[in-house]
């Protein structure tokens, strides 16, 4: 039931999106899913099977830190927040992404006559 027929995620951008989502405030796993959905304007739904491996991978690299806390309905949940290293990573990845988009975009804009 994946509805990402609008956009197909490039490999590796999942990490970037998760970092961005967490940067806006500590979230538990399900919350990350919801937030990405929300900030993408309901256009992107992450495949649930790849979410948790991604979260653990980011924690392994030290970019997010997990901590047990209390959810809205008073249940125990694991919250993730961005670390300082994570913020640096987010910034650098964002920059790389923008450069990438710029580059590919400029290539794609080329018209026959400009060669």
């Amino acid at each position, binding site marked *: 039931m994946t509805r990402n027929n609008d956009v197909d995620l490039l490999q590796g951008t999942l990490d970037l999106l998760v970092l961005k989502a967490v940067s806006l405030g500590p979230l538990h796993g*399900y919350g990350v899913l919801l937030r990405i959905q929300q900030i993408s304007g309901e256009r992107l739904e992450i495949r*649930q*099977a790849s979410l*948790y*491996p991604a979260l*653990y991978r980011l*924690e*392994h690299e030290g970019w997010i830190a997990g901590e047990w806390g209390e*959810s809205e309905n008073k249940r125990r*949940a694991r919250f993730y927040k961005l670390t300082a290293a994570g913020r640096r990573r987010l910034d650098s990845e964002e920059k790389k992404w923008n450069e990438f988009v710029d580059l590919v975009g400029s290539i794609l804009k080329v018209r026959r006559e400009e060669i």
Partner: protein
Amino acid sequence: MRLRSRISTWWRAVSRAGELNRQISEELEFHIESYAEDLVRGGLPRDEAMRQARAELGSVAARKEDCRSAWGAGFFDELRGDLRFAIRMLAKSPGLAAIAISSLALGIGANTVIFTVAKHMLLDRLSVPHPEQLRMLWCTESDDVAVKGFWGYFESTPGGPDVTTSFSYPIYRQLRKQNHSLSDIFAVKPFGRMTATIDGRAEAVSTEMISGNYYAALGVRPTLGRAIGEADDGEPGSGPVIVISDRCWTNRFARSPAVIGKVVSINLTPMTIVGVNPPGFTGAYDAMMSPDIFLPFSMQPIAAPNGPQSLLTNPDEWWVMMMGRTRPGVSDPAAEAALNVAFDAAVRATVNVKKDAKMPRLMVRDGRRGQNQEAEMSKPVYVLQGLAAFVLLLACANLANLLLARASARQREMSVRLALGARRGRILRQMLTESLLLSLLGGAAGLVLAYVGRNAIPRMMTDPWGQLPFDGRIDWGIFAFAVAISVATGLLFGLAPAWQATRVHISSGLKDSAQTVTHRRRGIGGKTMVVVQVSLAMLLLVGAGLFVRTLLNLGYAHLGFNPDHLLLFDIEPPATRFPAPKDVALHRDLEQRLAAVPGVDAVTLSREPLIAGNISQSQFIPAGDAKSKPREAEFNVVGERFLSTMGIPMVEGRSFNAGDTETSRKVAVVNRKLAEEFYPNADPVGQTFTTDLKDTTPITIVGVCGDARYDRVKSDIRPTYYMPYRQQDDPNGGMQMTYEISTRMSAAAIVPSLRTAVASVDAGLPLLDIRTQQQQIDSTMRPERIIANLTAGFGVLALVLASIGMYGIMAYTVSRRTNEIGIRMALGARPRVVLGMVLLEASKLVAIGIVAGTCAALGMGRLIASMLYGLKSWDPATLALSGTLLIGVAMAASWIPARRAAGVDPMRALRHE
């Protein structure tokens, strides 16, 4: 920072796996519930929402694995899984696993034990700092420089002069003074046994006499008290002090610190114990055994006098060994040349030498193992190591066979795994884990075996009345050696089967029957293994046969005397209490008292016991023969009834009698060999001869006796003469003799009465080294016995392993060919034909193996020919016997699978998939 985070998450995943798993479960459960709740809010019924939530997340177990591998624990998890699986697989066929592990254990254990021995015997150095800097001084003997008294070690160089380590004490002092090439020269002499009276109890201690600079030059410091120094090695008697060995401290003083300052009496001389040596320090003479006490040379004239003149000032007695450390910047040849000049001058100054005499030459040789006298054991040790390596190879072949057979049996399982998407490397890893597990278990068991049996070989090497030459310590180097072998075994012999198992085509692997028709190429690996096993077994059996027969031949060798019912012990009266002629009188007294003990049939004594590795030697100059070059003969100083007690027959003339006293004419009895060599045309009885010993009175030959072996069973018979001890005029006193008591009683029964008899003559004379003549002989055959025992064990082991291998491969071959056999039988083949077919295949393998093994055995025979006695290295009887035995065992092992093949029901076989 990234690395730290990686390490910490990885560590958590590995060390607290359960906790992590629970955490992931909880997290995922929360996710599912939250998502389900949202779905419920969207209108789905609760059950449907939960189902959908679970389905979307996927398998929780799979997510757990993903998360764990995201934390880097993937490899660890797989390894744990592999190990658990491997253990389960081993548990399923415990018999085969047990055989593989125990054969590996025996192979690795044997190798470790023998490696321990080899390391101690061949590599152990003196435990002093920088033993490679130590040098020992040797000199060549020259006929022109007559040395009157010689006590020490000499060896002959092929085609050259004899070389020795003994020098006179005045020469040592001169050389030390004029030495500028070595950093210092110190002197040492293992002085033999002395009587130590500790707290009123007299016992024998082994001793080493040392110079004052010994401890300083060696760089050794006692763990307790102080060392012997220059102040103790001054004027005779100036240093009545001793340092004891660590073992002596443990055995006789219970490691009490009160030992320092204790006064004990050494040969009736009071001496103070001033120090205890560090454990492991064995002195400078021998890298393996430590003497009990160390005393300075200055005490020699007091505690161990050897005649009226002090050995320290006597230039005619050569007995002291000299060692030193190299000086940086001075090469060995340069040191040798410089010292030779000083040595030359010292010899000329102390000994009467003709002007143009050929001078003895000084040599500087490596001294890191002291004076290494164990050379006779080094060849057997190498042979044993080689054979042990073969046994290990056999065990590894067994392991490989086992793994190959199982890999083939699991062909189907491998195909299924590959079809399900497993990577080949992953499967290989799993199979390697299985083989490594087996080999590490075998290695661990082998190490336990080696620890338990670590003293087995040293015990075999000792006389029952002596001390262990070294403790079979298992040190870390040896442990690492055993582990390395196990790992190498597992990798090497697990790799090939694993490779073969994963090479299969998936489709044909899933169809079992596709392989049975084309069986020719199958099992070639296993068959090669069996051939290897059979040839190794042949090699080991032949080796065992040769060595065992050598031992038996030695046991049956003609000695020339009768060793039965003879009890031996040594009496060493100190010269301080028994100067000449009191020592001779003492022995006469003892002879009479001992003869009166009930149970004693006869008493005699000799300076050298027979078959003990020692001889006395002198020149033998028949009267009227002074012009020609003097020849050597061996001699023994014996009691009156020596020849009759030892069972040496008289051929001519008479033996000694009561008329041969201290004052009568000097007489001797010669053996037949001497008569043949020195008196080929005349009757020796009545002739006289002289020798180069101290006493130059002509000696009359009164009889000729039969030939008897003297120092070793293996030695040739050489010209020998016997003289009565009563006629020895040795002014040194302290005559040490071995008594031979002929008795039918057991040693334990008669020794107390013997002790009482000796004590009644003198209370301070212990009976030393009590043993039977047969034990004395056996002790000289130690190397042969050890080798025979060990190789026999190896041979049996090889036989067992080869038969197991044979059985395994034939059983496997039969099971793979069940289909084919079924077809043959359906087409009319009789069971007997099938039996014959299987046995033929087995015998082909055995035949190739035996031929290969025989060639290897012939090669091995050439290497060990010098260690054999009484048979050639290609002894046909041994080869034939080994071959027959091996064929019989291998055929018996193939019989059961062959019978099973013949009993196959054709219908069932054809349906066998």
